[in-house]
């Protein structure tokens, strides 16, 4: 084996007792004495190290390096931002794969292409042919840096010990970063080949490779060999060149679109232009779309696809075994073995991963394109026909920090039909509703920042007669914009709505208000729809152009769901033809305070992207939004845009103690009326356009996108309730808002003093809003929130800006608004902070003490409660029978 190449870590592997084999001309560890099954499992539950220094690494640079890469890769290289990586295929002219690769952009003008070790020479020969036409050059730097994959749920925690607490990368797939591990410069990618949601690949100087490896082993990571790397990638459904990519056993090229993952790596962007294999890939794409629409009439271009396969009977699948549907041979296994998994119990977020492991026989198969998910097939296991199924996937990584095995289970039968006599169920419902109400209102400390208990007056009004009725109305130009109602019996609600509009104008400080929208999300949808309609108003003969660019807060940085492409923006946001992604750009945040927008950096982003819409507002919000500074900037630079503030969470804080959006220069404010505001659950839209303004037309469009655009029945009862809430707010806002902000600061301080880790800037008392955020440890949020609920404290677990998603949440998000309304003051919040610390840090059961504390604060404040008001309320209650 003397001619085999060795990585920088060869001696480390040998010293650890690894079994070394020839892998693509490299002498590599196939396994360590722990063996493959244990290495696989350790990756899934803790953290494993893989030496991937054998992978070919090619540095591409030069004036035309992007054009070159666009020509030889399937992906859209121009869409690759700095500090991002992308998966790509190196296509053949005929639409197959020379290799698959990862492209990294650690530096603005240099690209790092990582290819399979065994293919490096072949890839270079192909690329060298192609590069002649470009002013670009390639340098092989495989030997200059070691590459170590650090994969598994604990990988972030371990690496953060080495980085001294600095975040490793942004918490999203394919993010890159350059940082220092205990004085050693490293480049890190949030990528991997294991299917782990938390996993990194670290590049380090060859001389420091052994240091990093041994240091991570010291911290608890364990080495894993190529054997486990293969079973992990197989379970994750990732293709391996030579099995799922390249050529099949008959020597025929496997089309790139046969591989689900590979197809995401293909771009037909206009900017990309022609590239190697484009015509063949375009033909495959058309065939792929037919197959996905279950049109199997012409499978000539894409006769087979790579799919997961799971054996139902006994045995083990191996590459090359034939697959049958009845007597018809429909393909063969491309990769297969037994892989281990941890068993689990419980459902949903309560799922507990057990120590007990089991094995399953799974694989990937290259089979007829007309096979559907869940179809049964048979595998010829060395002469025996064994039943198998085509599941949609073997593993999911969308509930971090763990990758979760998905075991095939046929759909269970429908639940038993309900009993014919519904009376017992009806009685039980009444009983349970009463219990729930008594708990939430009598014994429970409610700290969900987006919730509020409305006053008794608001509740009774919301249930009184106009509820359940209709009052559609629309302004008619022929009648000088008078509102015309479609039904009779609506004079009372007409008056209520007019009064509500006036109260809300006064409260928001603007010229026009729409109150028919029944939620904050609907408010945003009506506004986005109106903005798009207004943009296209002079051309009704073509499809409407969508909005773009839009500047908003990233959801991970606390951005509100209803201002995201996955939320209310969904149908209104354009796709940028260059990046082929949503035309959304995010507010940069301060380096030393990730909860705060960085105004100077934002100005640069605005200058670069010229967003047509700027959306302020967050759901995880500790600071005022810099509306005035951005207004001043866009006015001064004459950048045409619309500034909107989605005040969902902070609608009830508008005023002297927080901020006044319209005074600061917002044009549109949307919000929900039941978070910090006192209302029934509805939405509201305010704008500050005057009749003479060009954008007054936008306001009229917003009205028509509310009705008939969004609602026909606009929930008249809660609209009536909201009028009372607006009276209460306008009467008491000064005291209420002052108390909320003071209580939030004081609660934060008490939590900190009690030993909990409070997020935010201590210099401003951690928060300028109603919210307080407490870190409870990576991934611990859901469990701690559940424990607090058992102890009568209702909070909401939340991913912080450093975390991957809600299942990995390490924080609690709390609001003091509802309890402030019940009279909680600094002393009450201090007592609560102590009980929470006892429960969270020491696991003490505090439920009864919490209930007693809550029992002392039962009376609603900031509403009309004098004798006369009480008497009128009693008369209403009697009249309505509520």
């Amino acid at each position, binding site marked *: 084996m003397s001619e085999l190449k060795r990585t920088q870590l060869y001696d480390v592997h040998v010293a650890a007792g690894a079994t070394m084999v020839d892998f693509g001309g490299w002498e590599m560890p196939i396994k360590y004495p722990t063996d*493959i*099954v244990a290495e696989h499992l350790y990756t899934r539950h803790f953290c494993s190290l893989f030496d991937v220094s054998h992978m070919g690494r090619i540095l591409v640079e030069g004036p035309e390096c992007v054009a070159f890469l666009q020509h030889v890769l399937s992906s859209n290289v121009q869409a690759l931002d700095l500090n991002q990586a992308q998966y790509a295929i190196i296509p053949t002219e005929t639409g197959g794969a020379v290799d698959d690769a990862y492209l990294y952009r650690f530096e603005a003008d240099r690209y790092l292409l990582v290819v399979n070790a065994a293919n490096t020479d072949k890839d270079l020969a192909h690329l060298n042919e192609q590069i002649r036409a470009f002013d670009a050059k390639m340098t092989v730097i495989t030997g200059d840096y070691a590459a170590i994959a650090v994969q598994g749920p604990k990988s972030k925690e371990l690496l953060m010990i080495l980085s001294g607490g600095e975040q490793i990368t942004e918490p999203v797939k394919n993010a890159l970063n350059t940082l220092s591990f205990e004085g050693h410069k490293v480049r890190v990618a949030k990528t991997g080949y294991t299917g782990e949601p938390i996993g990194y690949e670290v590049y380090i100087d060859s001389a420091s490779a052994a240091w990093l490896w041994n240091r991570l082993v010291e911290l608890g990571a364990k080495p894993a060999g190529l054997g486990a790397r293969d079973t992990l990638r197989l379970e994750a459904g990732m293709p391996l060149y030579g099995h799922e990519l390249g050529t099949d056993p008959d020597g025929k090229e496997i089309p790139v679109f046969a591989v689900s993952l590979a197809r995401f790596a293909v771009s037909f962007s206009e900017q990309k232009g022609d590239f190697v294999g484009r015509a063949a890939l375009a033909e495959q794409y058309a065939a792929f779309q037919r197959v996905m629409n279950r049109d199997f009439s012409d499978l000539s271009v894409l006769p087979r696809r790579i799919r997961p396969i799971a054996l139902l009977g006994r045995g083990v699948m191996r590459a090359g075994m034939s697959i049958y549907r009845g007597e018809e041979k429909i393909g063969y296994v491309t990769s297969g*073995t*037994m892989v281990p998994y941890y068993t689990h119990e419980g459902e949903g977020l309560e799922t507990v991963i057990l120590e007990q492991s089991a094995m399953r026989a799974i694989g990937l198969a290259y089979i007829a394109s007309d096979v559907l998910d869940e179809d049964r097939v048979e595998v010829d296991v060395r002469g025996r026909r064994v039943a198998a199924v085509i599941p949609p996937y073997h593993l999911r990584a969308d509930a971090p920090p763990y990758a979760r095995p998905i075991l095939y289970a046929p759909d269970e039968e429908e639940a038993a039909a309900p009993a014919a006599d519904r009376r017992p169920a009806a009685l039980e419902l009444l009983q349970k509703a009463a219990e729930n109400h008594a708990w939430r209102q009598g014994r429970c400390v409610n700290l969900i920042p987006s919730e509020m208990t409305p006053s008794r007056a608001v509740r009774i009004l919301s249930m009184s007669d106009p509820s359940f009725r209709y009052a559609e109305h629309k302004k008619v130009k022929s009648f000088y914009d008078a509102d015309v109602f479609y039904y009779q019996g609506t004079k009372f609600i007409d008056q209520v709505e007019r009064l509500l509009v006036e109260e809300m104008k006064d409260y928001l400080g603007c010229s026009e208000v729409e109150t028919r929208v029944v939620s904050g999300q609907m408010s945003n949808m009506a506004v986005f729809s109106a903005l798009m309609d207004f943009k296209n108003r002079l051309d009704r003969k073509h499809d409407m152009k969508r909005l773009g660019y839009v500047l908003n807060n990233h959801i991970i940085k606390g951005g509100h769901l209803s201002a995201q492409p996955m939320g209310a923006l969904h149908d209104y946001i354009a796709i940028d033809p260059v990046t082929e992604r949503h035309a959304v750009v995010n507010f940069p945040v301060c380096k030393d305070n990730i909860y705060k927008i960085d105004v100077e950096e934002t100005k640069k982003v605005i200058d670069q992207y010229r967003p047509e819409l700027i959306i302020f507002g967050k759901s995880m919000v500790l600071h005022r939004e810099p509306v005035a500074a951005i207004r001043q900037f866009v006015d001064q630079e004459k950048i045409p845009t619309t500034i909107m503030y989605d005040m969902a969470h902070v609608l009830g804080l508008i005023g002297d103690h927080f901020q006044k959006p319209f005074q600061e220069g917002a044009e549109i404010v949307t919000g929900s009326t039941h978070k910090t505001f006192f209302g029934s659950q509805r939405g509201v839209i305010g704008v500050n356009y005057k009749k003479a303004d060009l954008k007054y037309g936008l306001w009229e469009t917003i009205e028509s996108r509310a009705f008939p655009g969004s609602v026909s029945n606009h929930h008249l009862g809660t609209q009536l309730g909201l009028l009372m809430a607006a009276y209460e707010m306008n009467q008491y806002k000064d005291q209420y808002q002052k108390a909320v902000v003071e209580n939030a600061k004081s609660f934060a301080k008490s939590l900190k003093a009690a030993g909990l880790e409070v997020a935010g800037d201590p210099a401003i008392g951690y928060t300028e809003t109603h919210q307080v955020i407490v870190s409870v440890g990576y991934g611990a949020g859901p469990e701690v929130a559940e424990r607090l609920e058992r102890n009568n404290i209702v909070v909401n677990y939340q991913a912080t800006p450093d975390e991957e998603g809600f299942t990995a949440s390490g924080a609690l998000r709390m609001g003091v608004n509802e309890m402030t309304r019940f009279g909680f003051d600094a002393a009450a919040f201090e007592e609560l902070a102590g009980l929470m610390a006892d429960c969270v840090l020491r696991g003490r059961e505090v439920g009864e003490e919490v209930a007693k504390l809550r029992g002392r604060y039962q009376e609603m404040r900031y509403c009309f409660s004098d004798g006369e008001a009480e008497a009128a309320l009693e008369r209403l209650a009697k009249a309505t029978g509520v």
Partner: protein
Amino acid sequence: MNFPAELQYSKSHEWVKMLDDATALVGITDFAQSELGDLVFINLPAEGDTVTKEEAFCDVESVKAVSDVMSPVTGVVAEVNEALLDAPEKLNEAPYEAWIAKISDITDREELLDAAAYEAFIAQQ
């Protein structure tokens, strides 16, 4: 590595425990299991199968590969260790307890080694 004295061994790394002149338990040796690595599946012979010395009578699978297990004797499969179907890892954990098959009506056997000879044979490998 463990070589119980009461067993006999084949050069293809099976062990034989003679129960009487014509009946034996057969399994794989500690050396065999350590070479194969984690065993994840065993394809057992059927009761009543005739087996022939130095011919494959069963196979075991590790994560990476399938390996034949050779019969050290000629005879008839009287019983198989079905517990191994659900727990093939027993072949790794306790190879001399994890017998694969009981062979009866033994008419012939290959030249088997005693523990010391097998240990010496391994040492040369």
